[in-house]
């Protein structure tokens, strides 16, 4: 086992997971806002933010789809050791992580059922940058309007049209996190 597999987890798991969760929750509750998220040092190509999100939310009960470059030995071993999350394909995952191109198309992921719309995937999208500018956002969590640097617009509009079904997005870059729930209207 590689040394990097064993290292890079939360130093004080309960407290760091609590802080990381608050960042993710604030991001999901207020689309367009960007929050610091720290404590994880995952192997490349995962960002520290994506590592912290996965350590906070994933375990043996949450199949993860590793898309594109994220699907490498180093990441697989690190996630298996620190979370115990089983690997899955896009159609059976609860979480997916990778670049936008690697995660696309969205049509493969679980969107929930009409009686259980919560049984849907959450996509952790690794981004080259995050900024409160770009696509205009409206919906729950947003006072008047908000903006977020999304990789595109059309896919999010199609996802919004499925509401209350749909997937939810967490965007990560370096040590920062933003989110976009299925309820947000994007233009």
């Amino acid at each position, binding site marked *: 086992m590689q040394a990097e597999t064993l290292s890079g987890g939360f130093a004080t798991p309960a*407290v760091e997971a609590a802080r990381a969760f608050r960042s993710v929750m*604030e991001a999901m509750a207020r689309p367009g806002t960007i929050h610091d998220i720290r404590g994880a040092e995952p192997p490349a190509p995962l960002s520290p933010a994506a590592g912290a999100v996965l350590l906070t*939310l994933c375990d043996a009960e949450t199949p993860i789809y590793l898309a594109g470059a994220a699907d490498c030995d180093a990441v697989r071993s690190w996630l298996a050791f620190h979370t115990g999350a089983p690997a899955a394909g896009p159609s059976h995952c609860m979480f997916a992580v990778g670049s936008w191109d690697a995660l696309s198309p969205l049509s493969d992921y679980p969107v929930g059922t009409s009686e259980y*719309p919560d049984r849907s995937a959450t996509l952790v999208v690794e981004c080259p940058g995050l900024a409160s500018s770009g696509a205009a956002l409206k919906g729950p969590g947003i006072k008047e309007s908000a903006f977020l640097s999304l990789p595109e617009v059309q896919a999010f509009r199609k996802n919004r049209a499925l509401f209350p079904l749909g997937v939810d997005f967490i965007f990560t870059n370096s040590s920062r996190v933003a989110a976009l729930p299925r309820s947000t209207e994007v233009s």
Partner: protein
Amino acid sequence: MNAYNFAYLDEQTKRMIRRAILKGLAIPGYQVPFASREMPMPYGWGTGGVQVSAAVLTPQDTLKVIDQGADDTTNAVSIRTFFERTAGVETTTQTKSATVIQTRHRIPEDPLTEGQILVYQVPIPEPLRFLEPRESETRKMHSLEEYGLMHVKLYEDISRHGHIATSYAYPVKVEGRYVMDPSPIPKFDNPKLGDMAAIQLFGAGREQRIYALPPYTQVISLDFEDHPFEASKADHPCGLCGAKDSYLDEVIIDDAGGRMFVCSDTNYCTARQAAGHKGKDAA
């Protein structure tokens, strides 16, 4: 304090609850099932709210706990003590200095702000339960937006009483989609649910449901064109602080059956009295 048992719950349970909270925020008003844990307190004491609070608290938080508006009931004190011991958090009775507020049956009078989280203790999360006892059927009704029966029930109120008699747990519609039970808050509090700056999280322990309202969410109390919703309260000022805008409890003050109306939000009332406001019954 053992870091692995921060806020009492084990890490796996907190992850499960945290995932449910995120899905709840993504689908406002929809009840997310979760596997509720045994807590060291009876169900009636808000185990659902306690589990949600345990999943969101960080050591930097300042926690306030209210029971029907009061910080000093046995229930509120024991939950506050529980989190002081298990999470090492600061506690307060001041609405303005709290970052997390766990509540049973009230929304504080002071408007909440963007840095705050309001956690409700919920006894019966399903607003359609009294119309339909079967969970499989209420799930279907929500999925098909079959809310006609709910309106019929409210309208029966009107034909029987001349107005909508439901005064607690008054049902609301969230973002034009899900009908939601706001927990047994007085309907006086319903207008505060919508467009609130704080995050609102609802936990039902026995019924194993979590639901949520993100900030600035549209929340409409169900009503009828000829009988619009009214956020009523006792038509008196507070006997202690003179407030005319707060929700009041009627309390018996002596053996002769004397009564007075006082703010149910004790922090709001004491802060007003400290600022020099005086009601007609103040000493």
